[in-house]
């Protein structure tokens, strides 16, 4: 991978370069207090773009998988039925996407594009998407209490799947190209050659940042993967977890790696029907309800354990090459009953420690 150095004052010029190339650039902005958001960059708000801030809560996955997306229109006119797909093929760049969310998009790629059936709607959003990853280096502003990318092996610095990666070295920024398109940007005058001391500083900062993650969210992931994969988690534990679920679906909606949607047809005018797809969530009763009324996962805890089985069971990890959790911590903040990923891992750990006899390793 090629690396370059640029001055702090030149960082937002990358946004300008991309806009000049015809990209709609999405970047993070501050809202009230701790509220932050991804939004389209305009001439008016360009200077308000934030490099260091709490990762926006409403994840950038909506730029490849919109909350509500029209799929096709069916029109009936003069006895004829016309079906027309509705495609959107934007040329978009996300500036300032965090490493966890880069991993999220990679996960969606493998789900929507990685197998026999390629989802054309997803592909249209994805094919012209340019990702400028910013490494989380500011322990106060970038790293939240809920972050655990170091446990999910997605951050704080993504290793791949971005076009360009930026890292704050203090007075300067280091840029790393992750694709040909990213490398092509280096022809601009703002990018200077990187020196060995820059690279060394990068390593030093990353080492210190890893130490800034909170203890409470870390570890035990792999053991949980094993317990879930082996079906060792007791029904009682799932019930306790399920009893705290308010069936809001929020964990799915904010999850960068959740892929589920439902499809619905709605009348939009006389003789005209639109087919849309909407984010769906396994917490909801209607998610697995079958046409005859039978629901294999009617009990709330059955729906809840499905989420964690889907994310952490070995079968799925093998199929998709990574677990479907990127460690962004959004599910911690969104959950009414505090059953986000870290709490569930903790509940499983506690329950299993109780039932399993602990045999110390002998040397």
């Amino acid at each position: 991978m090629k690396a370059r150095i640029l001055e702090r004052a030149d960082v937002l010029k990358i946004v300008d370069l991309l806009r000049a190339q015809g990209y709609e650039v999405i970047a993070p902005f501050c809202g009230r207090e701790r509220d932050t958001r991804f939004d389209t960059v305009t001439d008016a708000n360009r200077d308000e773009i934030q490099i260091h801030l709490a990762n926006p809560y409403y994840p950038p996955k909506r730029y490849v998988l919109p909350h509500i997306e029209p799929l096709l229109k069916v029109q009936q006119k003069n006895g004829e039925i016309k079906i027309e797909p509705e495609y959107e093929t934007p040329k978009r760049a996300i500036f300032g996407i965090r490493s966890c969310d880069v991993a999220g998009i990679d996960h969606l790629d493998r789900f929507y594009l990685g197998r026999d059936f390629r989802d054309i709607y997803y592909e249209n959003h994805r094919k012209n998407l340019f990702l400028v990853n910013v490494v989380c280096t500011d322990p106060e502003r970038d790293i939240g209490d809920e972050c655990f990318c170091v446990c999910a092996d997605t951050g704080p610095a993504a290793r791949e799947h971005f076009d360009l990666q930026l890292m704050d070295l203090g007075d300067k920024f280091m840029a790393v190209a992750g694709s040909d398109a990213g490398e092509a940007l280096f022809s601009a005058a703002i990018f200077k050659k990187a020196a060995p001391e820059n690279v060394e500083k990068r390593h030093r900062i990353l080492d210190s940042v890893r130490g800034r993650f909170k203890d409470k969210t870390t570890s035990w992931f792999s053991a949980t993967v094993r317990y879930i994969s082996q079906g060792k988690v007791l029904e009682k534990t799932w019930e306790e977890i399920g009893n705290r679920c308010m069936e809001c679906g929020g964990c799915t909606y904010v999850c960068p790696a959740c892929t589920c949607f439902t499809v619905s047809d709605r009348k939009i005018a006389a003789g005209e029907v639109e087919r849309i797809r909407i984010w769906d969530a396994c917490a909801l009763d209607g998610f697995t309800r079958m046409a005859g009324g039978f629901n294999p996962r009617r009990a709330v805890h059955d729906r809840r354990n499905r989420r964690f089985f889907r994310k952490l069971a070995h079968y799925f990890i093998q199929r998709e090459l990574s677990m479907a959790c990127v460690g962004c911590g959004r599910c911690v903040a969104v959950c009414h009953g505090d059953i986000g990923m870290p709490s569930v891992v903790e509940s499983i750990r506690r329950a299993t420690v109780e039932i399993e006899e602990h045999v110390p390793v002998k040397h």
Partner: protein
Amino acid sequence: MAHNLTTCTFCGVGCGLYLETSGNRVIGAYPSISHPTNKGKICVRGWHVHEVASSPDRLKNPLLRKNGVLKEVTWAEALDFVATRLLHIRDLYGPDSIAFLVSPRSSNEEAYLLQKLARAVVGTNNVDHGTGVYCNNSIDVLMDMIGVAASTSSIAELSQSAAILVDEVDLFRKLPTIGGVVVRAKLNGARLIVVGSRRNRIAESADIFLQIKPDTEAVLYGAMAKIIVDRGFINRAFIKAHCDDYESFSAKVCQYDLLSAAEACGVSADSIEAAALTFARAKTASALFSTVEARQQESVQALINMILLTGNVGKPGAGIFPLAEQNNLQGVCDMGVLPGRLPGYCDVADRNCRAKLEAIWNAKLPESPGVGARGVLTDRGHGTIKALWLSRYNPVKSALFGDAHKTIPEFDLVIAQHPFITDDSRYATVVLPTVVFGEEEVTFTSTERRIQLAKKVVDAPPGPMPAWQQIAEVARAMGTRWHYRSAADVMNEIGEVMPFYSGADYDNLAREYGRQWPCTKEQPLGTPTLFTNGDGWRRFRFAPVAVPATATPAKDYPLTLVFGHSLYYWHQDALVQHSETLKREYNILFLDYPKGFVEVNSGDAKQLGVRDGEMIRLAAARGSAEATARVTPEIRSGTVFVPYFMAEVEKNIFGAAGEADRTVPVRVEKIA
């Protein structure tokens, strides 16, 4: 694209959320991390609130019935027609022949203007909100005992409660954000007491779950109060400093007997004692109940007595929470959409209150209380009501009493304000299309007294007009000089009329996350916890509650039939109908039981040999009814639950005599 902070309009919690727009389209909704009430959390309804705004089947132009058919007309024609007909009916039959019913979802501004139209222009107190029948009971008790008809504390402060008592309300399904605060408080060490005849999901998290027999709350709380008094856990200093009528209360409370209370409630004496001691020993305790559930005044009085007895008012983590289930139930009550109370809860009979309003409104106000929603919707055959104004309210689908679909067609004039064609518009003379959430800037007041701005984030499609503006236009067409340039102007007048809203101008509300009333010019930041400073408030009052008589079950009718609300009905909700996800979720009960249902406890059903989905007969002394059985472990053994929408069941059980009790002894029979 833009992201605008606004407030969710489904339930009474008033969660803060952002609407993301692209051009003139709302494309997403997500909760605010910083909002003090929901802190990044929201329920399934909030996640889909934006779908309503983008719904394609909106009404565009006013509709006027001509030769029996609703035809599109201009705004001028529609408004002129409404004004002329209202004046005509008033002059012919008197002001009390006209009634105004408001949805608990209507904004503060439209609720305020509509009751002003009723009182100051038409001259009647016939104003009420759709949930009035039940909620107004709680308002009377709260006004009498603590002088404020609202939560005394904030939702976020529940996290500081050492003990929380949840009375009957299904927090997980109806008010999930509050459910979450309670569950997390419990995880952090608070003790949770859940009371109710239904095993709601919150009961699974309870330390003590008292699954009492229906309508025995007053006995339970009386017995708990007796334990608190006998064991010396009362807060004497608080009672002495702030409360009246302790002696008469204590004279009644000593008549309670733990063992007979345990028998009456159907729970063990030990569990009652444990609950009483948990509540009394807690450093701070809160009690939550729903104002929408039908219940006797005594049960609310007995609950507030316990709060006063332990001094749990006026400090963070303590308080009484009469929960409003609809997003502006608190607001429409504040605005005086009550047949017996003016804006700010003043009695209509109070001459001074009337005089103050008459000066501001420049009109003479009626003195006697008006007819409430139940009175209006059961007016069938009496002919006292000639005209009805429905503001976003759809009694045909949602009223829990009377035969709205038979009563309403008898009226000479029916005016409906709504964004969609509803079942009520079928009987309407005029339909005035309103704008929806996100298309107008108005305010709502949440169940924690938080007055919040709902932002305008997109332009309304051509045609619909804000509901408050329609009311103002009608008033002008009726000869008044009402002049409001915007909803903000209306709010300024509300502040003039009601001192506890006087600081809540739009500029102030736009800062931070709304303001909790009282929000005055002197205290513009609002008041998260009431009664903290001790002064400026009138004294609290205990309510003596005599030991309620408990009915012994008749041999022939061993089960108790209870009427209540059901989520089933949500599938009829106009907002839910216009969201793909919500329609699916709230349709499930409807798909499973297309003809409705009555609920039978699983254990009882097994004994009776009744299976889920089977038709059964409910036999009572006065009549009998048939319905589909829904077998569920959620309801208490020995009870049968009938949702209000099963109107036929209600009618057949009570027979022609009508007037409903909430519980009736019945027996369940299999239909051979």
